[in-house]
């Protein structure tokens, strides 16, 4: 058995078709398909909950979505953004549920994990980067936001040094968001594949129960990590946007 080939098969994307438009390339791949399925599931289920809530209906599904929305509102967004956070709340709710559903998709057999693709997490981080700057400009105006990037009361001669550092910090934060989600989602898959590969490396029957139970444990861990990473991505996004809104 070719271990490298197996890993590539399970971890990397499968491109079904490819269209180039100038410098951009549009690929229709398995990760994109799964992402669209996740988006469709999110849209269908949450819009259904929203429409039921609008009609004043309150069944289990509406209450479930409401309780999750309350969690995102009271534990992620409002503590970091204050009352101004209400305007950004829909963005963070969408971020949380989109990432969560993509993470959970990876646990469906035969499916794939879009958040285990660095292009996807990079795109999500770019959205957060965009949100940080938009929120900063919205709250302080363009000049005020540029001024608020460096700490207040800085000596003028330090500014040429501070601006690159702060801008670099902004990029690093976003880059870390991208890498953290990607690495966390792919690491669990690698560990599961490694455990299962042990069976073929040893070629002994008694290895199978051990490997499969270990893989099962990691799968359960991945279920937890799916929620945890969606929470962390949203929480850090909220902290960064909050930092731009309430700059020192």
């Amino acid at each position, binding site marked *: 058995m070719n271990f490298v080939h197996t890993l590539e098969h399970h971890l990397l994307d499968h491109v079904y078709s490819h269209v180039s438009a100038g410098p951009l390339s549009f690929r229709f791949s398995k990760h994109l398909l799964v992402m669209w399925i996740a988006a469709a599931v999110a849209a269908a289920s949450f819009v259904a909950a929203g429409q039921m809530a*609008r009609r004043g209906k309150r069944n289990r599904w509406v209450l479930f979505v409401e309780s999750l929305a309350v969690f995102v509102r009271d534990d992620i967004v409002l503590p970091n953004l204050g009352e101004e956070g209400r305007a950004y709340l*829909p963005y963070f709710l969408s971020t949380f549920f989109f990432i969560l559903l993509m993470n959970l998709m990876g646990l469906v057999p035969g499916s794939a994990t879009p958040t285990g693709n660095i292009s996807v997490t990079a795109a999500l981080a770019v959205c957060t980067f965009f949100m940080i700057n938009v929120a900063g400009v919205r709250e302080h105006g363009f000049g005020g936001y540029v001024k608020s990037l460096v700490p207040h009361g800085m000596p003028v001669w330090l500014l040429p040094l501070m601006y690159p550092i702060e801008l670099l910090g902004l990029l690093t934060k976003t880059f870390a968001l991208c890498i953290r989600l990607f690495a966390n989602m792919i690491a669990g898959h690698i560990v599961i594949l490694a455990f299962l590969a042990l069976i073929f490396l040893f070629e002994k029957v008694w290895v199978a129960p051990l490997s499969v139970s270990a893989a099962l444990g990691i799968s359960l861990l991945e279920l937890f990590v799916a929620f945890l990473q969606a929470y962390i991505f949203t929480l850090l996004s909220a902290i960064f946007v909050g930092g731009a809104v309430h700059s020192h």
Partner: protein
Amino acid sequence: MVWTVVTFAGLAFVLARFAWKPILAALDAREDSLRQSAAAADKAQKAAEELRRSYEAQLAGVESKTRDLLAHAESQARALKEDLARTAHAQAERIIDESRKKWADEEQRLLRDLRADVARMSLLATEKMLRRGLDKPFQDRLMQEALGDFEKWAAPKP
């Protein structure tokens, strides 16, 4: 990457418009109504407390008023009693005085009558003695007669 941004932007737009807006509105409405009913309950409790305090104050007022009334009635009764006793005493004194005076008057009158009678008797006796002369035994007899008459008069009338 472009696909992800496009998908996410579309999803965020659709969800914000059709899912989060109504859900968050419903949440806010429910939380508002909860806050309002809590405030209303608080207000009602305060009102009840106020009412209870006013009733207590009223009750205390009634109690003190009753006590005042009772004390007033008691003092009035005592005064009345004393007044009655005093009047009765004075009246009794007067009656006693009056009767004493009446008795004294009667006594005086009786004595006066007695004196007048005695004088008339002795006059009568003297007259009889003068008419019969100086016979001593006769004189004695007359005297005896006069005295007997007197005794008969002085004897208590039946």
